[in-house]
């Protein structure tokens, strides 16, 4: 059997239906379903490292990328994932199209739905928008980020990265650092990491950490050095610079001084601790280039690679659920 045929067989073996009709939030998963997706994604990682990457899991199916908010990384990651599965992909950057002309989200959804895609991948600036859209269409919907609510495929790819690095996510202590209040990545990661048995600590200034987070069974730490003590993973969040100046933090240089990740602060974490960042990074604001580019501690490039594999797993599992019936 050829290498390609072998990988295809492994993929077919590991392919199980997605637990829900849509993937809107981390809570749509459960531990066995998450493990199955990770196993499948692992196979896709190997597959993606081959030179011929075509597989026909989704041949003849249509995936529409609907991005109401500008994004290069996430939309191309989904686009590549869908193409490698053999699907036809249409990417619509609606941030600059008809929606601006007064067409409502629902109108757009209904219009696209009439074109009968199998899967809609949606990003929107308003929390809950993807959920709303999913109620109006017949296809499967993947949340590629809604406002400050959730970005579940990011959490899944982070989980994949961690499992491949540490072997097991259960028992790890993960510090999520920075602007948790406005971060959908943080919300999805808190939910999924806890679901898989990791301990989560939130680190950042009080203006960027929601006070009610205490009720989420996480530790809260406003001092970075204290917050990094004993952690296995430092997950940095992107600071939305336009939100910051003088409002939530006094300045980016003050932020870097106290909450930016550099060698000195990283030294407080466990000796073999790893660093993650969902990208794009503000170098010199939330993270020092010296740390970000050090491949012995930084998993940031792995995250990008795992992003394609994790999204392939999600798309394939959603398509499989539709194929076999609920």
């Amino acid at each position, binding site marked *: 059997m050829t290498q390609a045929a072998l990988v295809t067989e492994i993929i077919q073996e590991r392919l199980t239906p997605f637990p829900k009709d849509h993937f809107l939030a981390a809570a749509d998963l459960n531990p066995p379903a998450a493990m199955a997706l990770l196993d499948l994604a692992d196979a896709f990682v190997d597959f993606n490292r081959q030179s011929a990457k075509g597989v026909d899991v989704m041949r003849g199916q249509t995936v529409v990328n609907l991005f109401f908010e500008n994004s290069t990384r996430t939309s191309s990651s989904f686009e590549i994932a869908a193409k490698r599965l053999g699907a036809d992909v249409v990417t619509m950057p609606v941030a600059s199209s008809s929606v601006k002309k007064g067409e*409502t*989200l*629902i109108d757009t959804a209904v219009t696209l739905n009439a074109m009968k895609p199998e899967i809609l991948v949606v990003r*929107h600036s*308003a*929390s*809950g*928008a993807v*959920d*709303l859209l999913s109620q109006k269409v017949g296809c499967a919907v993947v949340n590629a980020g*809604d*406002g*400050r*609510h*959730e970005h579940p495929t990011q959490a899944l790819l982070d989980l994949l990265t961690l499992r491949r690095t540490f072997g097991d996510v259960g028992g790890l202590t993960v510090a999520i650092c920075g602007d948790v*209040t406005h971060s*959908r990545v943080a*919300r999805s990661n808190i939910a999924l990491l806890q679901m898989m048995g990791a301990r989560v600590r939130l680190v950042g200034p009080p203006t960027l950490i*929601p006070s*009610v*987070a205490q*009720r*989420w069974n996480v530790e809260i730490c406003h001092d970075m050095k204290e917050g990094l003590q004993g952690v296995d993973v430092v997950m940095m969040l992107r600071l939305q610079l336009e939100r910051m100046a003088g409002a939530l933090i006094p300045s980016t240089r003050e932020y870097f001084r106290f909450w930016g990740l550099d060698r000195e602060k990283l030294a407080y974490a466990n000796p073999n601790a790893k660093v993650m960042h969902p990208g794009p990074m503000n170098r010199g604001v939330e993270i020092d280039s010296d740390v970000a580019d050090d491949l012995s501690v930084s998993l940031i490039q792995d995250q990008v690679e795992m992003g394609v594999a994790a999204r392939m797993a999600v798309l394939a599992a959603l398509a499989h659920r539709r194929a076999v019936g609920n």
Partner: protein
Amino acid sequence: MNSAMTKTAIINARLIDPATDYDGQGAVVIENGKIKQVVHGHGAVDIDGANVIDAMGRILAPGLIDIRVKTGEPGNEPKETLKSAALSAAAGGVTTIVIQPDTDPAVDDPAMIDHIQRRGAALELVHVRAAGAATQGRKGERMAEIGLMDEAGALYFTDVDNVILNSRTLQRVMSYAASFNALIACRPTEPWLSEGTVATAGELSTRLGLSAQPAIAERIQLERDLALVEQTGARFLVDQISTDSALEVLTRARKRGLDVAASVSINHLCFNEIDIGDYRTFYRLDPPLRTEEDRQAMIEAVRDGLIDVITSAHCPEPAENKRRPFAEAEPGAVGLETLLAAAITNLHHENGIELIDVLRPLTHGPASLLGLESGTIAEGAPADLVLFDAGAPIVVDAATLKSKSKNSPFDGRRLQGKVLLTLVEGRIVHDQRQ
């Protein structure tokens, strides 16, 4: 049969009249639009020549007075017209509605007050009265013609959901209005803490990623407003109190002898922050729904008589303004038709408040605050009455509401309390006895 000139007798009723503290067997005779005779107990009823209505033991109460009703007339008629609002009111047993001045253009001069009230009267449905803007264009900068609007019949003055930011402007509005004994109403909302927010700060809003205001936004602004009331001696209504901590501020001020009235919306008595659930925009309200503790505090305040007025906070928004992502949806809910049933269900059946105490802030409370003759079952008072069955179950179906907008948070809910008959000056404006 609907002529005001006919004589009508409603017999075998359970009269509940908060104004006279009467709850018992009785009958009412109506002539020329006024209540001619009120019989308590089983005394002789003057039914000579009258059209007799047998209430069969059902409750006859003063028609409801709803002091916070928004329509889209003028300027936004697809949302609601005065006529659709009046029909909705009649169906809900509401016999007087006070139209909010936040129309387009704003109701900020005597001609506009006159316009609304004439258009309303021509409908021959319920009493349509108007509140005037406190400042020109509701911009919070220059005082509106409070004296002339008062003369034209404006019942009170408010910039509705716009907060008068400039404390000096509000101070002047209050002291000027005091010379006409005019009532000023303000929403207690600290503008910077609440700017751009769509929910109450808490675990749920944080998890959902919605921008949220802390409850203290209400308390802070109320403290300022009450300090100005104390200084100017204005007659004042706290428009839509919704948090426990603001209620404490109010109670403290009243203990010091400050005479201020307060209203609460029916929505804040019936729902809490959890009702927004998975971004249900029909529960996106302004002020936003609060915690269960706040809701319970509002119910206790009604029980203890600390709330003068319960309003429907009727705010029609067509489906296209609601079927949006939560933060982009327009706030507000229609409520005229469900006000009575929701109040009876929630306050009486679920929380054991006596019906007479439930009806007080819906009838006598607003009537005495606004100086209306209605709101009571007394000889000589206008025959504005509602006959209802407090036990009858109904299922709210938003599609059948008379309002042009169907944004009811009660859609699909089971309520107890059915309006059977609504009379305005003796005219039957709604009849659901069959």
